[in-house]
């Protein structure tokens, strides 16, 4: 049941407990309880809005940075990841398999701001061996949503 509730909320955070209950044929109070519990348990972390900032006219620059680090005894990558993710400029951090270790998404107001953050903060951290910065030029699809304006419904307005 939790999975079904989460799937609905993931795609539409505006749905309320009553609507979800009807859609899933469950009692309303039970759905409300589960949602509250999942918020408590930090399964639901936040009700998020996916925004096309470019369209909103905001000049934001983002870069994905491949970071190679030296893992540390006992704590592995977690410690250094923690040092990185505490920076507010850092929007996400993933541990990766393959030729580098951490993938870090950094956001800033300008190219220069992001580049400065990387060269002065990220690259100088102890245990960081190297960084490769890839600026994001265009977002086509994010979180399963295509950014390009989708053509309107092409169906005939009435069809028997």
């Amino acid at each position, binding site marked *: 049941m939790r999975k079904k509730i989460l799937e609905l909320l993931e795609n*539409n955070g505006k749905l309320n407990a009553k609507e979800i209950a009807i*859609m*899933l044929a469950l009692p309303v109070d039970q759905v409300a309880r589960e949602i509250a519990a999942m918020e408590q348990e930090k399964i639901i972390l936040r009700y998020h809005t996916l925004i096309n900032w470019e369209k909103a006219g905001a000049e934001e620059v983002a870069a994905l940075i491949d970071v190679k680090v030296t893992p540390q005894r006992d704590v592995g990558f977690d410690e250094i990841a923690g040092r990185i993710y505490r920076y507010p400029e850092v929007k996400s951090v993933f541990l990766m398999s393959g030729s580098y270790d951490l993938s870090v998404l950094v956001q800033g107001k300008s190219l220069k701001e992001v580049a400065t953050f990387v060269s002065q903060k990220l690259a100088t951290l102890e245990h960081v061996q190297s960084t490769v910065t890839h600026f994001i030029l265009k977002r086509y699809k994010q979180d399963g949503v295509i950014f390009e304006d989708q053509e309107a419904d092409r*169906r005939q307005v*009435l*069809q*028997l």
Partner: protein
Amino acid sequence: MTITCGFEAQRFINPVVKSLPPSGIRRFFDLVASTRGVISLGVGEPDFVTPWHIREACVQSLERGYTMYTSNYGIPELRQAIACYLEDRFGLSYDPQRQIMVTIGASEAVDLALRTVINPGDEVLIPEPCYVSYKPITLIAGGVPVTVPTTMEDEFALTAARLEKYITPRSKILILCFPNNPTGAVLTDSEMEAIAALVKKYNLLVISDEIYAELRYDGPPRSFAALPGMQERTILVSGFSKAFAMTGWRVGYVAAHPDFLAAMVKIHQYTILCAPVMGQVAALEALRHGRPDVDRMVAEYDQRRRLVVSRLREMGLECFEPRGAFYVFPSIKATGLTSNEFAEALLKEEKVAVVPGPAFGSSGEGYIRCSYATSLAELTEAMKRMERFVARHLAFKGRAVAHAY
């Protein structure tokens, strides 16, 4: 075009064709088409686009040059896949060589079936409200449509008792379409069994339009042909349009007794030749790998169905719970309006388009068809607008009644 004086095109047109509908609903269609900003709950096709892997299979086949005619029956792999599907899903066994033909949608299959079996004057039993094509095709083929009304009290199911009242010595064919367009009604196993008993008793032939079979919310799909003794008496019509969101591809199929199929293929080969190969290739991919897509879409329709039924009831419209297809068929009698008045006023006042029930036969009066093959966001907004509309009209009627006393 310059028209020579004295040429009367109308005189050349077959009177049966001349007298066919559409008539009444046309005006409403035009009205909807000329209104801007409409949310349409009047669409009889999925809001999903065909799943990407199915479209991709077609693109690849085009790249490899699949652009030719196929066998009149359809490509053998597809017929084989249809046979496997019917076996897995309904426990029906058909010989793909002699009992299955790919058609241009279920639409062509219905036409072929009726033209193949109707002798002029034969009566065709058509439960109503129903999909709009059965009656006209029956008339074109020289048959006599005998409509059998179904009612909300019976949840729009066809009951054997009601059917038997309409059977005469000239009755030859019974058309079944469950899950139903426009009502969303289904038949339970026992209802089907009772009908099957009559079919045997009166030696009828059944044309079963099972295009919505997969869109069922009360359990696994059923086929009328799977009832004991019914397979040879049933011309099973289905297709890919609804379950796989493939309306524009124009692929469907018919499965029947080899003699019926041999007769149908004669008409098909002269009038159609074959279904388009692109659609056939896509349909094959759909049957081979499309199961998860169908399950996903059905789950989503089911959620919307519950929401819409609940909202319609909350706003004061009586609404039976449909268990199939993607339509709800609420009664609008409480508003005191006719179906046409309701639909027109709703369009003008709130810009929501629904289809008036009588478009599907006179027994649809007092009802409207709302399709929930529309995104959740649009559905929610449409329900909001409808709620306002209904509240206004219920209040108006309340005042009018109070005034009369």
